């Protein structure tokens, strides 16, 4: 069996199946939806950070753009939600294209510029003068599209898509080229890779994943404010989850979300008074002792982690 088929059969399919069945056995639908959302976003971060080395602290910009791309099509064109999901992808793609020059920066400079771009986008959308178009700071309220079950199903499809992208990158020439670019762009060019183009493709793919996640979020909640969908928490959580598990693998971001977001909710429910202390200590321990993520514990033993 080819490697990619194993990855689909033993990683992606069980994960999607589990989250498809869980709503029938567990009542907290919102929590399950959030898990699916973060699994998608962490894998999106993996595409751009794990495979090219760009740490996107402003990743939420694409999520917000997707949420508004979805909502504006519903509000102004009365588009059906499925078509509006296309709007979410296009909005994120447009923002990513606009921000492509950021890829000329590297390291912290890229991360800071990306964060600034996301904040600027939020300020633009929140502008009261644009109320007629974006609803400005007063937020979006969509009527007639509220359908959590269908939105959850769409979230599962988007998550499956993000997982399949990770499988493709882990098993394709293009994924290998991206890793080469991450390791050493000069040498990658010397191997014949068109470095700016490879980076741009990864950037656009990663943006579309976040845009679709934003669209499905908007569909699920139907009412939100700019600060909800441009909250830096999304960027930070997605980055931390992906790093905690270990990037440039398929499994790493999945493990990161399941454990860390699981712990996050467990502490939040059981001992909320110690929540920030315990969570902060966990992240510090990760950075100090496992900078390559949990997956590195297995990799150190010479085991190839998918």
């Amino acid at each position: 069996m080819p490697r990619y088929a194993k990855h689909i059969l033993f990683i992606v399919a069980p994960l999607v199946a589990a989250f498809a069945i869980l709503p029938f056995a567990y009542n907290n639908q919102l929590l399950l939806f959030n898990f699916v959302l973060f699994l998608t976003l962490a894998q999106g971060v993996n595409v751009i950070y794990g495979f090219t080395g760009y740490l996107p602290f402003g990743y939420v910009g694409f999520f917000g753009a997707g949420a508004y791309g979805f909502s504006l099509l519903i509000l102004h064109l009365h588009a059906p939600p499925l078509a509006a999901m296309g709007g979410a992808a296009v909005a994120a793609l447009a923002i990513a294209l606009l921000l492509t020059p950021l890829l000329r920066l590297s390291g912290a400079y890229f991360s800071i510029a990306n964060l600034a771009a996301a904040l600027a986008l939020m300020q633009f959308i929140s502008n009261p003068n644009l109320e007629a178009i974006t609803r400005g700071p007063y937020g979006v309220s969509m009527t007639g599209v509220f359908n959590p079950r269908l939105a959850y199903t769409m979230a599962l499809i988007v998550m499956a898509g993000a997982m399949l992208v990770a499988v493709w990158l882990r098993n394709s020439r293009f994924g290998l080229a991206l890793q080469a670019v991450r390791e050493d762009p000069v040498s990658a060019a010397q191997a014949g890779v068109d470095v700016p183009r490879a980076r741009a493709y990864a950037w656009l793919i990663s943006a579309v994943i976040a845009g679709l996640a934003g669209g499905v979020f908007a569909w699920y909640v139907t009412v939100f404010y700019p600060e909800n969908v441009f909250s830096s928490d999304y960027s930070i959580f997605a980055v931390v989850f992906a790093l905690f598990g270990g990037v440039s693998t398929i499994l790493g971001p999945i493990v990161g979300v399941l454990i860390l977001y699981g712990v996050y909710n467990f502490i939040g429910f059981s001992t909320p008074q110690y929540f920030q202390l315990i969570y902060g200590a966990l992240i510090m321990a990760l950075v100090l002792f496992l900078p390559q993520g949990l997956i590195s514990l297995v990799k150190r033993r010479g085991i190839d982690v998918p």
Partner: protein
Amino acid sequence: MSPDDILRIDGLTKIFFGFRALDGLSLHVSRGEILGLVGPNGSGKTTCINVVSGLYAPEDGSIRFDGAEVAGLAQHKLVHRGINRTFQVPKPFMQLSARENVEVAIAYGGARQGEVDAAALLGSLNLDAVANRPAAELNSAQQKMLDLARALATKPKLLLVDELAAGLNPAELDWVAAKLKEFARSGMSIIVVEHLMGFIEQVTDRVVVMNAGKEIFGGTLGEAVQDKQVVEVFLGGGHAH
């Protein structure tokens, strides 16, 4: 440009913050020739390789390769046209295995499908035993060979070799010299930048001596050591005029 020339450089100039690293350099390389590029530190040898391989764009001058002007083209485009290089300090993809290092270049370097076999290429450079190990775990001589393997995987017509011999033991030097000659016999042209004169004498057909970004001598190494200007540059401690 003579039909025998694969590369002809005319008046090549590269300026870094007012410093003329290349100052109107002119040279040519024939098909299947191994040209030695020698000169004191700072004479512009590595800059020449960096400009020809597309790492830096020149301010002025012409680089004609295989009948076409290529000055200022991006690195990957030059790779596809048939120019590749090694680095003074090897730059493999450290987290990727030796095999993956080569596979990237096979996939993207412009060689026809099936033309280059990763295992055979690694084997030919004595890297078969470490093919599945991350490049970071290889010793410096192996990393140099991996740098060379990545370049060879793209089937270059012109190979630019920047101080490949530095740090190798005598047996490894002889082996590398034999390899370069073997490549040249198959039709590949090679420019070798090197400080080890014994190695230069062993592998090159002709040398170009550089000083202050210019060619000051062209001929055999034996003729070069008889040349007053060359001797003054190497032993005089100053720039010849």
